[in-house]
């Protein structure tokens, strides 16, 4: 097992993980920018959170420090809480204005 993981760290250096996380984060930003569906925008935010998680895990594995993985664990907890509350807000908005188009939500008071 240790041989395999040592080989992996040689085959896939840290730059590749950095590049992958950057691409994933940029795709999330792109999704938030070009879509209007609130749920799809929400999923893009999840994609961005996962890019950060992957980068933290990669740094922690290459740095031989367990603190990074604990941080990833906490980020997952916060993401779960955020998804629950966010979807509740979306359901409530849909009940009020019968749409999830982001342009309909431009005013907070109606």
């Amino acid at each position, binding site marked *: 097992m240790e041989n395999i993981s040592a080989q992996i760290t040689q085959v896939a250096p840290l730059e590749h993980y950095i590049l992958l996380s*950057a691409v994933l984060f940029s795709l999330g930003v792109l999704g938030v920018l070009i879509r*209007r569906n609130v749920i799809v925008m929400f*999923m893009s935010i999840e*994609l961005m959170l996962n890019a950060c998680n992957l980068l933290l895990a990669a740094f922690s594995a290459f740095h031989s420090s367990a*603190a990074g*993985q604990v941080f990833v664990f906490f980020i997952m907890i916060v993401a779960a809480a955020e998804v*629950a509350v966010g*979807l*509740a807000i979306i359901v409530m908005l849909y009940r009020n204005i019968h749409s999830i*188009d982001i342009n309909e939500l431009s005013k907070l008071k109606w």
Partner: protein
Amino acid sequence: MVVTAKNPVHSVLYLIIAFFAIAGHYILLNAQFLAIVHIIVYAGAIMVLFLSVIMLLNLNKDNEPAKSNVLKLAAVVAAGLLLVTFTGTLKGTESIIASQPYDDQIGYVKALGKVLFNDFLLPFEVSALLLLSSIIGAVVLVKHDLK
């Protein structure tokens, strides 16, 4: 594909594929605990929540009006610039890391549990409170007549 799929249900399914790919990366990084937690939390809980909300609101039809092409082009350019900035910024970091000795035990549950319950005990308890408050908040928001 999460971004480009017209149907929100297809978007969710592509997102599940992306999450499993990330879990595979965690296993490759020797972080087994993170991989298992990732699959349970994301594929198990969050995706079910997304799908059930989409079914509940009956949104599985692609009636989304498209944004103008100029706006899409501007968004693509902005995301590309962000990508260039990130790679440029993070390019110089690996020389700092390279001198560390490699330890393959940190991803296991035993080592992570020791760190979690020794150094990070207070954040752990606070995150439990956060989850509780998010449960209560979600129920209060969705409930119809809170009288």
